[in-house]
Structure formats: C-alpha cells, structure tokens
C-alpha cells in the first residue's frame, strides 16, 4: 500500500505525541470529547454513509453505555475495565434486539423509529428511579483503571481514547475496503439489486447497526469514567441530532468524514465561544448560536457532500475544477 493512502493515519499517530509537548488540560479535554464523539460518529458513519440507514437515536446507545458503566461500578462494584466492556456489549445486544424489525423501515420512517427509540431510552434514564438516579443522575463513578494503572488525568485519558480510536479506525478502514464494505454500499444504492446479487441485506444492515451501537456504547462507557458523573441530559435527542450532523458535515460514505465532522463540530463550538465575544463586544451565547446555525447552513449549501470532499480542490487543477462545476442545472 502506498504511503499516500495513509497520510491520515500518520497524522493521527503524530497527534498522540502531543502529550510530550503540550500541557493543557483544556486541550486534552477537548480532544477527549472529540475522540469520544469520533468513535461514535465513525460507527454511525458505517451505518449511515455506507449502509445508507439513518439513525436519530444514537445518543441512546451512547447513554446506555454510560449508564451501564456507571451502574455496574457504583451499584455492583464491578472492576472498571470489565464494566467498560459491558458498556459496549449491552447497547450492542439491545441494538440486535430492536434492529431486526426497525431496519425494515426506510429513510424518514427509519429516522422516526430510531428517534422514538432514543426518546424512550431517555425517558428510561429519567424514570429509572434508584437504578439510574432519575433526573439528578449518578455521581461517584470511579476512575477507569487497568490493573493498578489508573486513568486519573486528562492526559492519560486522552492517550487512551485516541489509541482506541486509532485501532478502531484501522479496523474500519479494513472493513470499508473489503467485500463487506462494498456490500454495505450496494445496500445503500439499491436493496433490490443487492439482494439479487446474493447479499443478505437484513443481516448486514443489522450487523452495521449493532456495530455502530457497540461503538456508541463504548464511547458512553468511556465518557462515564471520564466525567465520573452521569445524568440523562447529555443523551437527549439533541445529541443524536449532533451525531447525524457530524456525519453529514464530514461527508457521508467517506472513511475520514466522520472524524473530520466530529473535530469540526466540537472545534467550531469551542472556537465560537472564544472568538464571538472578541468580534462583537459583550455578545452572549445568542450570537454563538446564530453563527453556528448559519455556518451549518452555509456548509450544506457550499459543501453538500461534506468537508472530506474539500481535499479534491487541492488535487484537481483549477481548470478542470471549473468544468466540474458545469453540472446539471436545477
């Protein structure tokens, strides 16, 4: 394989060296959050971008992972690492159970079904009484530890999250460049034709769904161990929408898209928080919100295929680029 194809991975490896040079907990936290989102969105990207199945309920799997970790460690005193595994597996199992029926639905109907699943789970977090701590949530989640090594600093957590992400990315890279990746794409393009080519669409869609739920759950578990406090509010419908935004902004059906989407959305939020008050003195959150929305709309108008497509501007010489723009009108 050519080096060129792996520039992204090399960049990621370089990112892991940051701790040797930088010493900002804020930076690490931001990167941890980006990393967690990237894990979720990368899985969701397989489901949405490759298999073509929209989900507006992934915050539920994220939350299920988080609550699994929280409940197992605080109520049942499981070892943290074991609880982390469980936090990935349980959402996976739930996805397996609900997916078979749900994935028969198409497009908006699937979006609605996943949305209502997400809201149901969110209600469960709120109404779970003693088990989930209700709307006030649960605190006192221990730090994640492997043996006697404890992930008690932002820096250590950052290394962990991005290593996990890197390993997942390698796996996903293999996946999308394999027979399975191709089969997923063909489901997205035409289920009839895919079935007639011998592809078991129902099964493959389910696998992609379970896979994305596993990743979301894993990220949820990591989140619980990172913040050590958990409550229903980060797992609402809004969060599911954020995840979909990240996938689409990054670029559907592209390998790097989801990661780019996660970075851009989180970084944009953080940047706006810093920059807006500088541009408009005395500006509160209102301006941030407005500008964020406007940027979102702008991205979709000018880069409807997502940001990962921007690379093409640097590769195709300008002349050809101009011709590319002459497309079907309307």
């Amino acid at each position, binding site marked *: 394989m050519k080096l060129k194809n792996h520039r992204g991975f090399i960049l990621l490896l370089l990112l892991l060296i940051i701790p040797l040079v930088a010493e*900002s*907990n*804020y930076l690490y*936290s*931001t990167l941890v*959050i980006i990393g967690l989102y990237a894990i979720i969105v990368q899985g969701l990207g397989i489901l949405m971008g490759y298999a073509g199945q929209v989900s507006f309920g992934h915050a539920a799997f994220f939350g299920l992972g988080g609550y699994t970790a929280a409940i197992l460690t605080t109520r049942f005193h499981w070892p943290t690492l074991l609880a982390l595994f469980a936090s990935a597996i349980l959402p996976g199992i739930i996805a397996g159970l609900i997916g078979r029926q749900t994935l028969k639905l198409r497009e908006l109907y699937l979006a609605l079904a996943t949305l209502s699943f997400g809201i149901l789970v969110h209600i469960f977090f*709120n109404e779970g009484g003693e088990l989930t701590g*209700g*709307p*006030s*949530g649960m*605190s*006192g989640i221990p730090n994640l530890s492997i043996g006697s090594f404890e992930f*008690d*600093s*932002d820096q250590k957590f950052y290394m962990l999250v991005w290593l996990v992400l890197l390993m997942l990315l390698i796996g996903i890279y293999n996946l999308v460049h394999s027979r399975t990746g191709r089969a997923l794409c063909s489901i997205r393009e035409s289920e009839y034709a895919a079935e007639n080519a011998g592809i078991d669409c129902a099964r493959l869609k389910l696998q992609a769904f379970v896979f994305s739920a596993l990743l979301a759950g894993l990220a949820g578990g990591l989140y619980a161990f990172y*913040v*050590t*406090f958990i*409550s229903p*509010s*980060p797992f609402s419908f809004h969060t599911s929408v954020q995840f979909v935004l990240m996938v689409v902004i990054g670029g559907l059906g592209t390998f790097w898209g989801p990661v780019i989407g996660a970075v851009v959305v989180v970084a944009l*939020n*953080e940047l706006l*928080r810093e920059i807006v008050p500088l541009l408009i003195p005395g500006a*509160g*959150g*209102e301006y*941030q*919100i407005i500008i964020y929305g406007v940027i979102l709309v702008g991205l979709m108008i000018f880069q409807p295929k997502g940001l990962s497509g921007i690379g093409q501007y640097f590769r195709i010489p300008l002349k050809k680029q101009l011709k590319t723009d002459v497309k079907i009108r309307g």
Partner: protein
Amino acid sequence: DVKSAGGNEPYKIGAVLDISGNSSSLGVPERDTLLMMVEKLNANGGVKGHPIDLTIMDNKSDETESVLAVKTLIEKGALAILGASSSGTSMAMIKTVQSEKVPMISLAAASSIVEPTSERQWVYKTAQSDIVMINKIISYLKKNNLNKIAFLYMNNSYGDNGKKAISAAVKDSGIDIVAEEKFDANDKDMTPQLTKVKASGAQAAIVWAIPPSASILTKNFKDIGLSIPLIHSHGVGNQKFIELAQGAADGVILPIGKLSVAQQISDNDSQKKVLESYIADYSKKYNAEPNSFGGYAWDAFNLLVNALEKAGPDRVAIRDELEKTQGFVGISGVFNMTPQDHNGLKEDSAVLVQVDQGKWKLIE
C-alpha cells in the same frame, strides 16, 4: 481596561453559567448581576487594589460543555469558579475542581452538590437547599392542620430534589402524601394530573416547579375548580410567575428568599439593607427587578471577594477562607459555613409569602 483600575495585577476569576439552552432563565440574570458587580467593584478599586478580571463562559446548559468550560477557565488561571447555574451542569464540574484543587461556588440548589463535604472540599453553594424551604412549608401545614397533601413536581432534577426532600421531611410528621404526580417542563396542560389530585382528597397541594409550567398548572388548578390551598416552591419566586398565571396566582403560598419582599420585612432584619441596595443597583442598571437567581450570583461573588481579601491570590487559602465564612449577610440569607456545611443557610433565610392581587405578601 481591567489592568488600569488599581495599577495592580488583576485577580482572575471565572464563571460558568447556563446562559443559553434549557436553564437560560437562570443563567442570564446571574450573568447580568455578575457583570454589574465586577464593574462596581473595579470602579471602587477592586480587591485591595487588585481589579477583578472575570471571564464568563456559557455552557449552553450542557454538562459536557460545562466540563470543557471549567477546564478552560482553570487553564487561564482562574483563582476560583462561580457556577454553574443548574444542578446537572454543576455536578459535571465537580470532578475537575476537586482534582485541580480550585474553589467553586455553585449557584444551584441541589444539596448533593456539596454533600458529602468530605468529597467536596472545594465545592460551595449559595442557593438554599430544598430542605430549608420544605421545613417552612411543613410548619405551615402543621399549623393549619393540613395532614393529607398532594405533591406535584416537574420531571427534572429540580423537581426530583424537591420530591426527595419532602419524602424525607414528612416521615414521622403525621403528614401523608396522598397523591404524587409529575409533569414535564414542556407540558402544555397539567389538567390530567390535577384531576387525579382532585380525586385523591388532598387538603393541600404542593408544587415543585418553575414557570412557565408552574404558571400553566396554576391556571389549570383554578380552571378545574380546585379550592384547596396551593403551595408552590421558591422556584416561582419571580413576578413572571404571577404575570403568566394571569390572575390565577392569587392565593398561592410559597416559601421564598427575602429578596421579593424586601420592603415588607422588618427593618430589624439584618438583610434588609443589603437587599435594598442590590435592588436599587440592579434596577438602575437593567431597568428591571432582580430575582433570586441573580441573588445567588450576588452572594457567590461577594463570598468570593471576602475570601480573596483575606487570602490573596491563593486557591488553597481562598478555599479555607470560604469554609470559615461566618455571619456573612447576603441576598439569600446569612451564611455560616462549616467544614460540614458548605451552604451555610438556615431556615431563617426564607419567609412564607402569599400572592395577593398580583403582589407578594409576607404572611408571618
């Protein structure tokens, strides 16, 4: 410019507030109060000649954003953190301030924010805990021989904490909760819940909610012809509640901090002067009445300034000074902190009021 105020190095402090998002009705008056306080303090020479450099960050009522915001502030060298506005966003910050050893004064009510204090050495709060308010209500109920009550609460952490507190408080008090109903912050009609209350035979209804749902409930209450006493929580302690309830609020009873009835409290009350000056300052600057949320911010800011004056720019010393606070007269009450009590407010910080022709009236 901040530096020029006293010529001395400014003291950096940070605030994380729920300025936008679900709890923005809390965060906005808090922000306004803080901005006003800083301006006034710096104009008067700051803390021993050091101006205060306050950075306010909006967490959008989001817990994850709260964590990121508090880390930014600590990174920028904040000596202490004020906020966050609501319980969830405050809870999310605790791990960070505990491990980074930065004093934090939350503006939210839940007692779990500061308890157990053995695990919350760095965390303080200025809003009265629910139990303070509940006790006020319980004594009213006993006095009027109301033994069967209905409890209605909002389905979020505010309502949830209220429910926990009242369930604990009614034990062994001879009062029975005969109906317990909840509703969503977004609900547009609480008649179904109230129909159940009506059928339950309760002698009084206690509601733990904030407007607009609290106001809608009050309207519905009147509409379906319920005539038992309606007791709300301090969550409705602003004029907005009365306005939105459009006349239905008359007769509503609630425990509240003294801010809303500052004129009516006795001149002997040690808080009177403080309250009146806050009201005057705030009304002058913003052309509006301040509310209790702003009051929490006032208290947090002044507690911190007090500690800073004694301790100087040293986080450990600030924390120690906060814990030693005694007899500090604030908007929400008189604060007496101890190593076991990081809130420091007692029952005397609240009064019972009744709405009478659209105005608060002190009833004790």
